[in-house]
């Protein structure tokens, strides 16, 4: 049987078809498209998970977060007070139902076995609002949320599996938590997510009359809109509600609220969760989308250029085949097989890369967003239908377009093909050259953007890693302790201190509600400035034991530590951060000054010390003015959890489990959990920025590679196309230097245009990213100059290789063979 060497011809074997189709398509095109579409597919899968995939609730668009905010103070969270919740849950026609949730956790006993679990205090209405049916049993009953109601609990899927062996008989069983016995009434499905990270169990939030009068803004409230209602309509109503509720307040409180810019509004739950989980930096998603778009664009431009390069040769092949008797159908079949094989290879390659990229990004993003505490994410990032549809769809679109273009440009009668490739004879070669240079400049532009933004982000990471901490994390560990509600922090500390002193390797020990870089626990408060107009300031406020500063080695700028007597006698003394002292009193020498931090009716507090600045997070929060430390016995604040910080001898770091057991043994009923080294905690907090930098760096490198390839291909093609011209110029006396200059001009042109536009765009993007950058001024000269140098050297090197080859051309042969 005759064996055809050409695809698409009737006698060919299918294996031969595929092999020759692969050979006739540039492997470079397949590789570039697969790489670019695969990586961008992974990137868009991430975006799909965050932005487009609906949240796992029925009718998720009806869900909103209600938030009370004091923007002028800096309180810009997603919380409400119980006072507002009480008014809203029954006072608006736009809300069908609403519920609140607060985090709780600690040791609980199931069948006599002690577990440390994290869950939430939820109003029973929260379950009705989220409307996710239980896997077993039912939601918390409305009665459980009323004073004296039944002690009910709903279990999370994971905890039900681990503590109750996944048995349906768990319904009706009881467990002990915080001195109370709760009866399990339901189990929620695995995908159930309740805004707050704890997902082991939910117990009812009992709304006592006193609690319903509480104005503290620190509870998450989810509401479901009435059918047909939009968040905008609700916000109009909430604006009216705000005005009415302020009118009911005293003139002084009304004035205060106006000064602080008090607002209450609703934000779609999806949007709110994005802000919460991205640390208020949704611009990161914009960055991902940009990267996801730029890479395929570079690859497409490269592929088109390569197709143009090959089209003249292909036209010759077509002509030869025609001369040998091939019909139009034969040629069409050949192109079709080539297109299908190319498409298949690109799809396969891109899906494999996309799958790998999704796994990588999921790991990276999960660890970056959740930090040291493992929490569930409401966003699903996985290689799935979206990734496959994206991969196949984009590959189909791009490969088809490129192949059609190849066919079009290869046609002898093609007007555009003639325009581009034979334009020289018609005096329009300049237009063709302009087109090629435009493609080249576009590649340089995109690579410039990616490289420069990547470098600025990298510089930001370097700044983050080198930022002054204000404390010493070495040989320090911290563990979160959760106390039964009847035990105060001060009492716990008094009880446990002797035991801690005898733990092996412990040099110093301290207790504080917060520890730097522990994002799970934070305590913010608005305090009043002592001088008119008595502005409200948003600060971190926390209770600490005396040893806190010594254990973390936080230096005193002025004054002293709390005394033992002050700690014992509930003295109203505070230690301020230097920045807050300056803001309150105009100087760091604030020792001896006094003020009423929590309003005119709160106790007068005296400043006894001023300490240096401490970094609390990877990047500083711009809305927080400073830090106010109070003794454990300071009146008015009650914490049921805290963090024990231990300064250990180096060898003791290997015995953390033993230290944790000893800690729990010293205070029965207390759960010590999340024992972690401070250095690990800091690294985990930096993980988000490291992740962003890693992703951007990888993509910048891929873009750089694609650009090198593209510029090389373009310069090589141009040099090849102009060899005849170079030969002629040589014959009339052009020196090698002048020829090299001419050939390099292609690169210069692309470089000048692409670089100037790219730098402009990169600076604009850097400006947009300012919120996620650390220590980067508006113009980061070192990073920008380095970025420009990288692009310039890359483009010139890529241009130099083909230009160097010009000198090795056989001029005599070229001059003999034909016209330029």
């Amino acid at each position: 049987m005759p064996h055809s060497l050409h695809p698409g011809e009737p006698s060919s074997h299918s294996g031969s078809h595929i092999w020759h189709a692969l050979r006739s398509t540039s492997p470079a095109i397949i590789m570039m498209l697969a790489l670019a579409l695969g990586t961008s597919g992974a990137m868009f899968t991430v975006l799909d998970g965050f932005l487009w995939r609906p949240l796992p609730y029925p009718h998720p668009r009806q869900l909103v977060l209600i938030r009370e905010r004091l923007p002028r103070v800096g309180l810009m969270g997603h919380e409400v007070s119980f006072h507002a919740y009480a008014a809203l849950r029954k006072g608006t026609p736009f809300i069908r139902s609403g519920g609140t949730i607060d985090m709780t956790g600690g040791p609980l006993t199931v069948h006599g076995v002690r577990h440390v679990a994290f869950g939430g205090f939820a109003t029973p209405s929260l379950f009705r609002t989220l409307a996710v049916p239980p896997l077993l049993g039912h939601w918390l009953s409305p009665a459980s949320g009323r004073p004296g109601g039944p002690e009910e609990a709903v279990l999370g899927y994971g905890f039900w599996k681990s503590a109750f062996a996944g048995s349906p008989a768990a319904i009706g069983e009881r467990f002990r938590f915080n001195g109370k016995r709760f009866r399990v009434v339901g189990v929620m499905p695995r995908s159930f997510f309740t805004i707050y990270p704890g997902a082991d169990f939910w117990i009812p939030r009992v709304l006592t009359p006193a609690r319903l009068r509480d104005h503290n803004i620190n509870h998450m409230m989810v509401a479901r809109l009435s059918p047909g209602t939009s968040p905008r309509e609700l916000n109009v109503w909430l604006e009216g509600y705000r005005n009415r509720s302020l009118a009911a307040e005293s003139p002084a409180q009304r004035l205060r609220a106006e000064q602080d810019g008090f607002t209450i509004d609703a934000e779609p739950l999806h949007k709110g969760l994005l802000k919460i989980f991205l640390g208020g930096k949704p611009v990161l998603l914009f960055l991902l989308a940009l990267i996801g778009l730029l890479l395929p664009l570079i690859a497409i431009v490269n592929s088109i250029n390569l197709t143009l390069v090959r089209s003249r040769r292909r036209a010759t092949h077509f002509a030869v085949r025609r001369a040998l008797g091939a019909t139009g159908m034969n040629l069409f079949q050949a192109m079709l097989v080539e297109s299908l094989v190319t498409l298949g290879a690109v799809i396969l390659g891109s899906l494999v890369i996309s799958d790998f990229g999704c796994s990588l990004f999921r790991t990276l993003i999960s660890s970056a967003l959740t930090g040291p505490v493992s929490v569930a994410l409401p966003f699903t990032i996985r290689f799935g239908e979206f990734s496959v549809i994206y991969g196949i769809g984009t590959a189909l679109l791009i490969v088809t377009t490129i192949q059609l273009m190849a066919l079009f440009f290869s046609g002898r009668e093609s007007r555009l093909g003639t325009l581009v490739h034979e334009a020289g004879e018609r005096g329009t070669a300049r237009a063709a050259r302009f087109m090629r240079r435009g493609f080249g400049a576009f590649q340089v532009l995109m690579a410039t953007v990616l490289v420069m933004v990547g470098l600025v982000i990298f510089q930001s990471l370097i700044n983050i890693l080198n930022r002054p901490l204000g404390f010493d994390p070495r040989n320090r560990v911290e563990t979160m302790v959760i106390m039964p509600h009847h035990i105060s922090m001060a009492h716990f500390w008094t009880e446990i201190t002797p035991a801690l002193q005898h733990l092996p390797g412990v040099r110093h020990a301290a207790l504080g509600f917060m520890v730097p870089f522990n994002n799970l626990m934070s305590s913010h408060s608005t305090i009043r400035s002592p001088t008119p107009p008595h502005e409200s300031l948003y600060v971190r406020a926390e209770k600490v034991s005396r040893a806190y500063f010594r254990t973390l080695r936080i230096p005193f700028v002025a004054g002293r530590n709390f005394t033992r007597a002050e700690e014992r006698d509930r003295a109203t003394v505070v230690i301020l951060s230097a920045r807050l002292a300056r803001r309150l009193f105009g100087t760091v020498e604030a020792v001896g000054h006094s003020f009423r931090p929590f309003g005119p009716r709160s106790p007068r507090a005296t400043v006894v010390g001023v300490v240096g600045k401490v970094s609390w997070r990877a990047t500083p929060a711009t809305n927080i003015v400073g830090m106010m430390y109070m003794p454990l016995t300071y009146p008015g604040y009650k914490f049921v959890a805290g963090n024990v910080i231990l300064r250990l001898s180096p060898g003791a770091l290997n015995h953390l489990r033993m230290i944790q057991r000893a800690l729990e043994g010293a205070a029965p009923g207390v759960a010590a959990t999340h024992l972690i080294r401070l250095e690990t905690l800091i690294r985990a907090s930096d993980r988000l920025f490291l992740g962003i930098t890693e992703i951007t760096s990888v993509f910048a490198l891929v873009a750089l590679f694609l650009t090198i390839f593209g510029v090389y291909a373009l310069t090589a093609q141009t040099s090849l196309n102009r060899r005849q011209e170079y030969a002629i110029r040589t014959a009339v006396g052009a020196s090698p230097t002048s020829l090299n200059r001419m050939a390099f001009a292609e690169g210069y042109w692309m470089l000048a245009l692409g670089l100037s536009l790219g730098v402009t765009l990169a600076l604009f993007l850097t400006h947009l990213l300012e919120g996620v950058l650390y220590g980067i001024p508006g113009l980061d000269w070192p990073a920008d100059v380095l970025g420009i140098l990288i692009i310039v050297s890359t483009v010139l090197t890529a241009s130099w290789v083909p230009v160097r080859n010009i000198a090795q051309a056989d001029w005599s042969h070229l001059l003999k063979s034909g016209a330029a």
Partner: protein
Amino acid sequence: MNATGPVIEVKGLTKVYRTEEVETHALTGIELTIDPGEYIVAMGPSGCGKTTLLSILGLLETPTAGEYRITGTPVETLNAAERARVRNRHIGFVFQAFNLIGDLTVEENVELPLVYRGSIPRAERRDKVRTVLEEVGMGHRLRHYPGQLSGGQQQRVAIARALVGEPSILLADEPTGNLDSKSGEAVMELLAALHEKGATLFMVTHDPHYARFARRIIRLMDGQIVDDAETQEESFSSGLTHP
């Protein structure tokens, strides 16, 4: 450079092309002297070394061995930049394929050698270009592109380009090869007219019909000059035709 001696002197010129497997002797021991005002035609079968000789004479290639002087100056050891300079000032090329640059106008094509000479003001360059284009009968096509001209017109422009730098010698490689007989005849008459005005010409052709225009014919065979003879005066005017 010596202006009164021979324009070109070649002694023992050899060119060997080497690949990994084959060594090809394109030229062997060529001895050639071209005096000012001569009109020489090199003839011979395909592969005899005509074009290689022309390329070496035009400094587009370097000889493997031998001496080569242009107006008395040795050029075989010049570097690429120096060769370019000599080529620009002493040599004018006319090719079979015209070799005009497609996206330059007629005027710009002809101007090129003067541009590479470097020191000539633009106005002077344009004057020279116009003069030489008038001389070859193409003064009315200054703004045209090569693609808009016939083959014969393109070759006239190519000749103008070769002449504009007032070179010591014109090297022509099958200048009529791509032309019909009428245009070819016209081009040859133009070259002859230039020779009459004193130009030195070295033309490679395999067509004996056009060899009649020359005063001296050298024949090459297997890379060697096998015959070097003056043509008879009457052969020029008698209009010998191809046998």
